[in-house]
Every structure is written in structure tokens, then in C-alpha cells.
């Protein structure tokens, strides 16, 4: 674990994520205030980055078609995008750990059923499922979190299931069982804490993915609803002004890529640090 802080990937990722979280948390302090408030539209629309408007307000990343400051919307949008990503992954982790732990610990028909369900959900194109769920109810931020959480738990369930089964054969688990520890206590106190290592890696990668998908749903109008700024709604709103104001779509996209890169690198570095002998792997190993 100590090697993690000497890993340049981890250092970069932690720095980027810390800065973004800090900017999002301190949004009112580092920006011009209300992200939704249009000013004098005619005078302040489509100002280029680094421009100062007539009222003397400086616009680091320019303004959009309503004269709204893009930097302000970016830092407020970070709250929504990061919040949705993290909460969705927490939901995925909760479901994945529950399914994986039960399937790994209990076995028999319960395991067959749960693993079948997991494989089934894994075989679906995630976005098709996302679209379906997102379109059935009225689009909202909460719905995006639930929908992303409900479609992202499968790989975590598989990982946890594998770990739990591998741990069951370890001497300390056998010892605890021989001492008469109940199944539930065995799972909570001895197995699960040791099975969570790969979950941390998967969660780091999952946050990046969830942020990207939130952007996609919002881009299609099925996610976070305007005027609430999320990076996806900002990209969508910049779509019509690519010619005369390209920065409106470019800025939130760059922010999104930076955060997703940071999440991926953090996941890679954590994977290497926690399991030094095996390289970080892609989605799932070979079926056996």
C-alpha cells in the first residue's frame, strides 16, 4: 500500500480528483455565484474565454447563449456529475456485495440463481437498459443515480463471489468456523472485510464510467434536467453553438475526460498496489 504514494499515476489522479472536489465544494467561492442566473443576455452572450463583460465581470471560460458564465456552470456541474457518479457506484457496490456475498457463502441453488441473474444482466447492453429505465419515469437526478446503480453491480457481484469462495478455504476462516461462529457473523467479521480489496479497484473505475454515462443520459435529455448544470447537460447545450461558441461544449467535455482519466489511473494504481503480482485486468477473466 505504501508504494501507492510513489506511483506517479496515483499522485496525478489524487491531485486531479482533490482539485475537482475542492472546486465543487467551494463552488460559490471560486465562481461568479448562481449558475442558472442569466445576466443581460444581449450584452453578455457568447463571450470568448478570458473576456471581460461591460459590467467588468471576468469570464475565464467565456459565456453561453444565455450569457451564463461557463466556469461557474462547470464548478456547479461538478457537484452534480461527481455526486451522481459516487452515489450510483455506492448503490452498485451495495447490491454487488450483497449478491456476491450471498452467492459465495451459501452456494447450492441460491448461488446458481444469483450467478445466472448476474450473467444475464451482464449480457445486456447497459445503455439499452439505461434508456429503458430512464425513459419509463420522469427524468430527474435521483432517477439517474438509481438507474446507474441498478445497472452497474454485476462485475462487483462476480468479484465478491469469487473472493468469498476463495476465502472460505483459508485457515483463519476454517478456524473461525470450527470455533462455532455463526454463518452470518463469519461473513461479516471474517470474510467480507478481506473480500473487499478488488471492490475498491472496481469502484474507482466505476465512478469514472458512471460519470461518463450520466453525461450521456443527460446529453440525450433523459438525465439531469436543465437548467440544473451537469457536465452532460452542458455538452448538450453547447451542441447547437459549435460554430460560434465551441468552448461551451468543449470545456465540460475536457473536465469530464480529466476526471475519468483520473478515476481510471487511480483504479489501475490501486490494483497494482493491492495485488502486486497480477496486472490490472479488463472486464472479467476468461470463463471457466
Amino acid at each position, binding site marked *: 500500500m505504501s508504494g501507492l504514494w510513489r506511483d506517479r499515476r496515483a499522485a496525478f489522479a489524487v491531485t486531479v480528483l482533490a482539485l475537482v472536489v475542492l472546486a465543487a465544494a467551494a463552488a460559490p467561492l471560486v465562481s461568479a455565484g448562481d449558475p442558472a442566473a442569466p445576466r443581460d443576455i444581449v450584452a453578455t452572450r457568447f463571450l470568448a474565454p478570458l473576456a471581460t463583460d461591460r459590467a467588468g465581470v471576468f469570464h475565464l471560460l467565456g459565456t453561453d447563449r444565455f450569457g451564463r458564465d461557463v466556469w461557474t456552470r462547470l464548478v456547479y456541474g461538478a457537484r452534480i456529475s461527481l455526486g451522481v457518479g459516487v452515489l450510483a457506484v455506492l448503490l452498485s457496490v451495495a447490491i454487488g456485495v450483497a449478491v456476491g456475498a450471498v452467492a459465495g457463502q451459501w452456494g447450492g441453488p441460491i448461488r446458481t440463481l444469483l450467478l445466472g441473474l448476474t450473467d444475464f444482466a451482464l449480457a445486456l447492453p447497459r445503455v439499452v437498459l439505461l434508456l429503458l429505465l430512464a425513459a419509463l419515469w420522469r427524468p430527474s437526478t435521483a432517477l439517474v443515480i438509481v438507474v446507474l446503480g441498478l445497472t452497474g453491480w454485476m462485475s462487483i457481484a462476480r468479484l465478491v463471489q469469487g473472493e468469498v469462495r476463495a476465502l472460505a478455504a483459508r485457515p483463519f476462516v476454517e478456524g473461525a468456523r470450527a470455533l462455532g461462529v455463526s454463518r452470518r457473523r463469519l461473513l461479516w467479521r471474517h470474510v467480507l472485510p478481506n473480500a473487499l480489496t478488488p471492490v475498491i479497484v472496481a469502484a474507482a473505475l466505476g465512478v469514472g464510467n458512471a460519470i461518463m454515462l450520466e453525461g450521456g443520459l443527460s446529453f440525450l435529455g433523459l438525465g439531469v434536467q436543465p437548467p440544473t448544470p451537469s457536465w452532460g447537460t452542458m455538452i448538450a447545450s453547447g451542441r447547437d453553438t459549435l460554430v460560434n461558441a465551441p468552448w461551451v461544449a468543449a470545456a465540460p467535455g475536457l473536465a469530464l475526460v480529466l476526471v475519468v482519466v483520473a478515476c481510471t489511473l487511480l483504479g*489501475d494504481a490501486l490494483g497494482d498496489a493491492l495485488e502486486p503480482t497480477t496486472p490490472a485486468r479488463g472486464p472479467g477473466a476468461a470463463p471457466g
Partner: protein
Amino acid sequence: MLARVGQRAAAGAAVVAGVVTLTFFLLHLAPGDPAARLLGPAASETQLAVQRHALGLDRPLGLQYLAWLGGFARGDWGRSIATGRPVAELLRDAIPATVELVGLSLLLSYGLGLVVGALQAAAGARVDTLLSVATVTLFALPGYWLGLMLVMALTYGARWLPAFGAAGLDVESLTGWARLGDALRHLALPLATLTLIGVGGTARFVRGAMLDARRQPFVRTAEAKGLSAWQVTRHHVARHAVVPVVTLLGLSLPTLFSGAVFVEAVFAWPGMGRRLVEAVQARDYPVVMAATAVSALLVVVGNLVADATLSWIDPRLRRGLRVS
């Protein structure tokens, strides 16, 4: 080997059946009435009832489900509620467009990704780091944003390539090479978007698989008996690494298909993804049902192909041995 493929085919059929069932009940249990959507807010209660009856929505859910299943199996996928056109006709045009886009992008991103990943595993630390930065960045690009940026640079900026649709307005008047050229120019940007992202993912995975193979004891043996670095890579590392790489082929299909949904939306590509988005927004039940079923079917078929390939290239699977 045949038994294995047969077993997988049965599992695939179960997945498709599961998807169809899930979609059907989700759609019908969710709020929102297609009859009301069709007739608008001014419709009276009687008109709504007549419309619901015409659409078969007043029958018990179980009966609707069975009727839909029977129709689907016979190739009768119903009519689009929004446009009145037969669903099969709507999708018949869309399926080849998506298969073309996803298939070509899969080939390209695999070819390029293999080269880049293998290069990274073989190259020195500096080249590896440089390429790693590039592939991580490509992998992190959202398709809907990369697509817009390419449109900005190559359509509005350089004025090289068209950004929307699969064919120009004058396509009917073109023949032969001119028509093919028009099709290729329209394909260029959506294909480039999907491929760039795919290369990042594939290269990352290939690099991992190659490095993993390099750590195996048999590689040390091969080196110890004096084989050249090229021979070790060619005969021992690459052959070992090909198994997870082919497995990824099947696993990456759902992801690629998902990516195509956004890319089709950005470029107005007339494929399944765009049809699905439109149908979902209009709550067009028959189209959503069929599009979801066909998407699942495409993914399952892709997985079966990857699995059959795997059985063919891996002698352990061919002889029915378990691979740990």
C-alpha cells in the same frame, strides 16, 4: 466442442427470452399511456378507451405478452404507435446500419489495439508510458463529446467531412463509385469516433494480457533454453495472451453497442441506437420491445461467435478440459 457451443446457444436463447420478458413487463407497468400520447391532451375518455382497445392495451397483461411473443416469433413485430409503420420495416433498415458501424469499428479497433498493446508490452518504459497516457485518454473519451469535437474540427472547421446521416441529399442521383464515396464520407466520422475509443480499451487490455503471459514460468523456461526475444514473444507470449483477448471480443460487444447508441444520436446515423432513443422518448412500445430484443440478440450472437472462436483456437477447450 459442439456440446459446449450448444450449451452456450441455449444460455444465449435464455438471455434473449429474459430480456424480452423484462422489457415487456417494465414497459407496461411504468406510468405513461401510449393512447393518451397518440391522441393528445384534448382526447375524451371514450376516445382513449377506443384507442386503447384498437391497440390491444385493454386486454390482460399476460394475454398481451403471449400475443406479442407469438407475433415476434412469426416475424410480425406489430406497428409503431408513433408512425403507424410496421416495426419490422423500421428495424429492417436500421439493423444493417448498426451492424456496419459496430462491425467495422470492432475490426479496426481490434487491429489497431492489438498493434499498440503488443508494442507497449514489448517496448521500453518510456514508449510504454507515453502510449499508456494516450490509451487511457482515448478510453476516457465519451463518444457523444468526441463526436461533437470531430464535427467541430472536420466539418465546421476544415469542411472535409459530412456530419449527419448515412448519405447525402443527392444520393439518389449518384451511381457506382460516387455513391460508395458518399457512403464512406458519411461513415468516416461516426466510425472514427467509435474506433478511437475502442482502440484505447483494446490496447489497455492487450498490454495487460501480454504482460501477464510474460510472467508465466514457461516463458522463463523458453528464455532459459536460449530462444530469441522474438521467438519467445511469437510462440509463447502471444499464443497465451490470445485467449483473454478473444474473450474480450465477446465481452466488449455490449459496451460497443452501448457506445453506438450515443454516436448514432450525435451523427443522426440511421441505426438501431437512434431508433431506440426515438422510440423510448415517444414511448413507442412495439418499437422499444423489438429494438431491445434485437439488440440483445445481436450481443448474444456476437458472444457465441467469440466463444466458438475461443474453442477453436484453445486446444484445452477443444478437448473439453477446464481452463482455470
